[in-house]
């Protein structure tokens, strides 16, 4: 009832028909398309070439892949456990720094041309993902589980997540300090021409490929495996899941392992593309939440779509806007979505 009320409250309302039209999925998609066209037009007006715009769009897709890794985990945790996980960005950072730590232990191998990294990073990626997942699960065992037992409202869970975020960050600060870091220093990372003058770095192609692979694996898991189906069932209706005999503890464990694991991979990928900073995950949180809400909370495929849209809009905006404003652009998209269709692209009307 409170939700109903919250949604209904607010100034004079247009007619039901107009409201439905404004809040429709088509309208939102059209609006986003309009935003994109507007960005391109703005860029064109400032003399940016079509080629560069296309390059930016391709880079946007790549960035969207990284964001998707974070956003999918975030939306799963949101959907299954009802936790707005404000620690998710910091889980990504955590993953990146764990990989950095691994690199200092392992002997540096030859780069796998044309990429800038060696096989050791791939190995570390495989190790880091479960570790980040376990970190998330540990946080759940120590904090969220107790709050759930007390039937704490979602705001309290969000606050605990915020505490978890700063806890993780403090560990990162203690372990590595506040400076910028790189996985590899002094390795050239030239961009190569893909086709039609579109230039990207080989690393970025790898990142996109890896993101797609992980998302495909996740798809298989959610659609084919028993645990994946149980996760979707729990997201649909946790009470019914419990009375059907679904092992909800197992679902919780797997949700953290998968959500955290994807976040860890996303963090490593983001750090590979840019650099490592303790605050990077915090800054990514806005694009992550924007992707999740755009693609409807709890919908893993929606999060992927949302992340791709945010990635492309973000990159395209750099054609004429200071690149530092990336998270700000994501925020602008979020506000548009909240104004017109808070339940996101794939939500049912009134489902926000």
């Amino acid at each position, binding site marked *: 009832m409170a939700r109903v009320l919250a949604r209904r409250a607010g100034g004079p309302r247009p007619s039901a028909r107009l409201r439905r039209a404004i809040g429709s999925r088509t309208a939102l998609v059209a609006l986003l398309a309009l935003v994109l066209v507007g960005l391109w037009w703005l860029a064109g007006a400032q003399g940016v070439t079509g080629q560069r715009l296309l390059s930016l769009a391709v880079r946007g897709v790549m960035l969207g892949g990284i964001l998707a890794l974070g956003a999918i985990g975030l939306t799963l945790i949101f959907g299954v456990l009802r936790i707005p996980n404000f620690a998710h960005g910091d889980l990504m950072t955590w993953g990146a720094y764990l990989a950095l730590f691994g690199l200092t232990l392992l002997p540096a191998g030859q780069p796998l041309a044309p990429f800038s990294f060696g096989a050791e990073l791939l190995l570390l990626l495989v190790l880091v993902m479960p570790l980040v997942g376990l970190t998330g699960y540990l946080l759940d065992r120590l904090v969220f589980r107790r709050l759930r037992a007390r039937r704490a409202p979602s705001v309290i869970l969000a606050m605990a997540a915020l505490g978890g975020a700063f806890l993780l960050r403090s560990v990162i600060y203690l372990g590595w300090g506040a400076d910028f870091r790189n996985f590899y220093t002094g390795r050239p990372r030239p961009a190569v021409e893909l086709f039609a003058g579109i230039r990207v770095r080989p690393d970025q192609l790898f990142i996109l490929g890896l993101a797609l692979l992980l998302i495909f694996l996740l798809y298989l898991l959610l659609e084919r495996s*028993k645990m994946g*189906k*149980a996760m*979707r*069932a729990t*997201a*649909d*209706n946790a*009470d*019914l*899941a*419990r*009375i*059907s*005999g*679904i*092992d909800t503890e197992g679902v919780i464990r797997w949700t953290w392992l998968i959500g955290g694991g994807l976040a860890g991979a996303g963090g490593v990928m983001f750090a590979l593309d840019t650099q490592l900073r303790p605050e990077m995950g915090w800054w990514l949180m806005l694009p992550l939440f924007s992707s999740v809400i755009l693609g409807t909370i709890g919908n893993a495929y929606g999060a992927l779509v949302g992340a791709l849209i945010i990635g492309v809009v973000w990159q395209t905006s750099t054609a004429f806007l200071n690149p530092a404003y990336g998270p700000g652009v994501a925020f602008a998209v979020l506000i548009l979505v909240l104004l017109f269709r808070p339940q996101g692209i794939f939500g049912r009307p009134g489902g926000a």
Partner: protein
Amino acid sequence: MALLTVEGLTTGYGEMEVLRSLTLRVEPGRIVSIIGPNGAGKSTAMKAVFGLLKPWQGSIRFGEREIGGLSPDRIVRLGMCYVPQTDNVFPSLTVEENLEMGAFVLSGSTKERKERVFDLFPRLAERRRQRAGKMSGGERQMVAMGRALMLDPKLLLLDEPSAGLAPLLVDLIFEKVRDINASGVAVLMVEQNARKSLELADHAYVLVGGSNAIDGAGHDLLGDPEVGRLYLGG
């Protein structure tokens, strides 16, 4: 020996007492119906039996075993399944996946069990890949029942299976309940539709104000003017 024996059950929500020393029995292989006016505590009785509410007093025995205070997931493993009145399917899962979730506690293939459910509900077999959220109310009810049958329960609890359905579908659902029972599953159901459920039930209890008022064979109660009085007072 009775499959389910409830004796002197008293419980409620918070400090609100809803059931007052309720007593009922379900024999193996029978259909038992609980009817009664609104607010009599019918659904609450179901929830208490299935462990969704802790009993304050009294006992609930399933076979030999006392199950009062056990959690629902333990009770499921003992062979009792429950179909809630509303929100009883996973809307984003397909029909087939819904059924699989019913058999979550089992390891190994569930194919055979699914086929048995599909035999019972041919309509579901046709729609096995459809998402449950897109189905009509009657079909959802069948999905929910099918999910509960996946574990081959000894006792099936149905909470108002006909609620919100069009008349034709109500007949269909009651027919299905009969079929389920014919396959050897005992059924304990709460029903709004007193007449229909009395026609079906081997035995029925009329609940008023949280306690049993009268009980008897379904057909006997059907003709009993006392039942009508209990509903509309007087």
